[in-house]
Every structure is written in C-alpha cells, then in structure tokens.
C-alpha cells in the first residue's frame, strides 16, 4: 500500500477501515541466504538496503522483542553531520544525504526536520577547535557557519548571555542538522524491507550461532534452528552477548546514557542546541516536549535507567545555559544502553568467522547513523568489501592503533 495525502483523505471519508498492517508477521523459514540479528534501526536499514541496493531478498531479520524496541526507540533523535576526523566525516556526510531523501525513498513520514544545530563554545580555545571543525565540515561538502556571540543571540535570544562561569563566545551552526521521529525511522525501514520480501520475525531471540569449519552455518533461536550462509550481528546494546555466541570478545563496554522529556510546551526552542562546557543538549519535539540529555552515567550498566547524580548534573547544566526552562516539568527520563568503544567510533566489519559480520559500537551516536550504517553494512555483507565511507570502522583498529578518537580522550570506554 502506497501512502499519500490522497490516501489519508479517502481513508478518512470511509472510517479509516482500509488500512493494512505495515508489514507481514511471517513464520521463520528453516533456511535463508542471510540473517540479520537485531530488528532495530541499523538491522532494519541493513535488510532494506540488502534488498534495494543488492537485490538480495531471501533475508530474515530476527528480533528478540519487537521491532524498534531498543535504542532506536530510546534516543534523543538528533541528526547531524558535523564530525572532524576523516573516517567519520565521509560516513556521517553520506548518512545525512540519505536522511535528506529518506521520506521519499521509504514513502514514509520520518518527520526529518532540518531545524539547524548550534554547538556553543565558551573559550578562545574552543572557538579555534570549532572553527577547525567547521572548516573540516565544509571541506567534506557539508555546511557550517561560525557564529559570534551576537550571531548566537540572534538565533537563541533566550540563552543566559550574562553568566560568567561559562560565557558564551559563539557557536558553530550546522543548518542541515536537526531531528527526526525515532520510531518512524525503524518503521519506515521495516515496511520498506517487508515490501521487498524480507521476513521480519519478532519475538525470536537468537541463543546460539552455528559455526562449522570456520564458517557460519546458521543460528539457534527460541523459535528453532535457522540455517543461513551469512549472518550479520547488529544488536548495539547487547553486542557483547551475541558476539560471545561466536566466541568473540569485543572492544566494547556497555554504558548508560540518560535522557529526559518535559511536558508539552508551546514552540520555544527551534534548534538543536548543545552546551559546549556543560554536557547538555536540547531540542523540542513536534509534540512540544523539551527533549534533553547530558553525559554518560560513567559506569558499565545494562539497567536502561540511571542514577540521580547525573540527573542533577544535567538539570544544573540546563539551568546554567537557559534558565527559562526552570519551570518546565520533567515528565519522563530513561536510559539507553550504549556500546562504548575505546575510541568513541563504531565498527562495521567482517569477523574472523567466514560469513559472519558485525555492526556495533555506536557509542551514543547511533541514531543519525541509521541510514548509512545499513547502507554500508549491506554493501559489506553483499560484496565482502567495506564501503568506501566505512572503510575505517575496522574491528582490528584497536589492535593496530588506527584509532578514530574524535574527542581525543584516549583508550578508555567511558570517556567518549
């Protein structure tokens, strides 16, 4: 079924009785060419691009819960391409271009809103760093504008420009940055993959990975054994557990990142704003809630909820930056489980097991990467070669020293 304005109108006339489920609910077959473990944003987009770009359709996506029930449903929905290091730059640039065409591509409203993203800076040194970052972004072909204090004031008049602890010197404006509707991205890719023949199998937990003579032969699941020639592990948040089924240890420690949303308010914040000194960023959802977050809780955790000291820290940082939000009531907070790598960059690579591929380690940058991650993982799984924009996301880069340390904080999982 093709979605359109006319369709919405005519369905409205006839009591909305003609809508069909957006995807099938198939029983797993005993064998597929390709299995994707993980029905989140990255797994679904991988399945979609395997079908769309490479014509492979004998694919199953195995999801232990429901589609989009993991981190793609637990993030702060920011989409941007403002990276500095070669390796990250071209990847996120590619991803943003895919975002810009995504709604037409999927015939699905993912509510991508390029409202502009402003990273504030608060010292001369930080200004220099952002100027360099902006130049790198422009060299990559993306957009960046360096704003001075008055420039920031024109965009964000409600910030506290008087506070002296972290005075606002200016900001780096990335006009093509913005937000999208997180669930809709997963649903859009799910629908697109399903329409191309991919089996999306929910409530099907992988319990083992079968390997024979160094090659993957299939998986064991709670709904029986399923054979496959190729298997992709795309389960950020649980990467370590699933990789262990294939005898692998990963350079990943799982950490908790909290986020918060307030009651719905009239439109007041029409950018994505990040506070360069206070681990705080904020945007306003279309529903009106202020969506904001801060830094990791800093300890390994799978609890999907955090502790109060970080809640206090985030609130303090928010109040320091924009005291006007002080009366807004926080409705909900939640935690996502982050695959933290020692350099803060992801992994899209083959493994030492033939036919077994892995896409993991998204730290807290996974949402904006959903389109390009699927694109590149599909390319890798279909051709056996890394896509040119994901060539540096190697699994062995830690052993070989080719780190992609965007923040320059070193080999410690919680510092990125």
């Amino acid at each position, binding site marked *: 079924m093709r979605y359109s304005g006319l369709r919405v109108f005519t369905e409205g006339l006839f009591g909305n009785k003609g809508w069909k489920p957006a995807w099938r609910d198939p029983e797993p077959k005993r064998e597929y060419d390709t299995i994707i473990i993980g029905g989140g944003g990255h797994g679904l987009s991988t399945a979609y691009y395997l079908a769309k770009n490479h014509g492979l359709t004998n694919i199953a996506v195995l999801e232990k819960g429901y589609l989009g029930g993991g981190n793609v449903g637990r993030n702060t929905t920011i989409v941007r391409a403002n990276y500095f290091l070669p390796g990250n730059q071209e990847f996120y640039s590619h991803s943003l271009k895919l975002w810009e065409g995504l709604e037409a591509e999927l015939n699905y409203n993912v509510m991508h809103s390029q409202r502009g993203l402003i990273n504030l800076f608060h010292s001369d040194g930080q200004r220099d760093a952002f100027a360099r970052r902006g130049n790198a972004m422009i060299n990559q072909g993306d957009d960046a504008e360096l704003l001075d204090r008055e420039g920031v004031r024109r965009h964000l008049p409600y910030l506290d420009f008087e506070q002296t602890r972290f005075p606002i010197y200016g900001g780096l404006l990335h006009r093509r940055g913005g937000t999208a509707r997180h669930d809709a991205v997963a649903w859009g890719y799910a629908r697109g993959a399903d329409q191309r023949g991919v089996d999306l199998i929910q409530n099907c937990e992988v319990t083992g990975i079968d390997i024979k003579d160094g090659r993957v032969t299939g998986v064991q699941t709670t709904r029986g054994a399923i054979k496959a020639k190729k298997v992709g592990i795309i389960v950020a948040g*649980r990467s*370590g*557990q699933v990789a*262990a089924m294939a005898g692998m*240890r*990963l*350079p*990943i*420690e*799982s950490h908790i990142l909290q986020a918060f949303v307030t009651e719905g308010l009239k439109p007041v914040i029409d950018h994505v704003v990040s506070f360069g000194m206070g681990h705080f960023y904020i945007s306003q959802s279309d529903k009106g809630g202020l969506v904001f977050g801060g830094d990791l809780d*800093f*300890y*390994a*955790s*799978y*609890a999907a909820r955090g*502790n109060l*000291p970080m809640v206090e820290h985030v609130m303090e940082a928010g109040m320091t930056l924009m005291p006007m939000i002080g009366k807004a009531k926080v409705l909900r907070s939640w935690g996502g489980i982050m695959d933290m790598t*020692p350099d803060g960059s992801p992994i899209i690579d083959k493994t030492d097991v033939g036919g077994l591929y892995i896409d993991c380690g998204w730290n807290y940058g996974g949402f904006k990467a959903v389109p390009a991650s699927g694109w590149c993982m599909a390319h890798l799984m279909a051709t056996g070669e890394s896509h040119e924009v994901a060539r540096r996301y190697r699994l062995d880069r*830690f*052993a070989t020293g080719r780190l992609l340390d965007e923040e320059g904080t070193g*080999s*410690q*999982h*919680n510092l990125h």
Partner: protein
Amino acid sequence: MRITCPLCGERDRREFYYYGDAVYADRPAADAAPEAWDDYLHLRDNPAGETRDLWYHEMGCAAWIEVTRNTVTHEILATRLVAGREGKKAAAKGRGKKA
C-alpha cells in the same frame, strides 16, 4: 547507587569515580606481546550481570576499590581495596626479589 568503601563505609555514588573493568589492575608485563596489551586495554567480557570493576573514592579517602556488582540491577555485591589484593602482594614480592 551506594558503594561500600572498605575504609569509609557505605557512601553515595557521587563520591566515586569509575575507571573501568577490574582487568585494568592487572597490567601486562612491559615486554608482553601486543595481543596482551590489546586485550588489556580494549577487549572486555562486558557481562550483563555480575562484574568486577575499579572505582576510586575520589571525594573520600582516595582508595582504589574493586567493586563486584550487578550491571543489570546496580546491586553492589562486594568491595575490597585494590591495595590489599593477593595478586598485588605477590607481584610486589616478586619485584622485591628481583631487585
């Protein structure tokens, strides 16, 4: 989350700084193979459940503490001083002999 410091008693989580997996306390020998260093610095079991990691009582007594806890429930199961570990003592003795 409250962590029991072996010296100070039960304290609020905000007094502590988290360093990482307890393997950080077992540094490979300087001439160890690169694989041992990769293992030490990067690769993690990363269990969902019981784990051991290193915390520093930063706002307290400045002791390094090995904490056994559950990463799913945030329950603290046991704590001990890194300085008092058997392995550490044995290593220190070994160094003394060499010298």
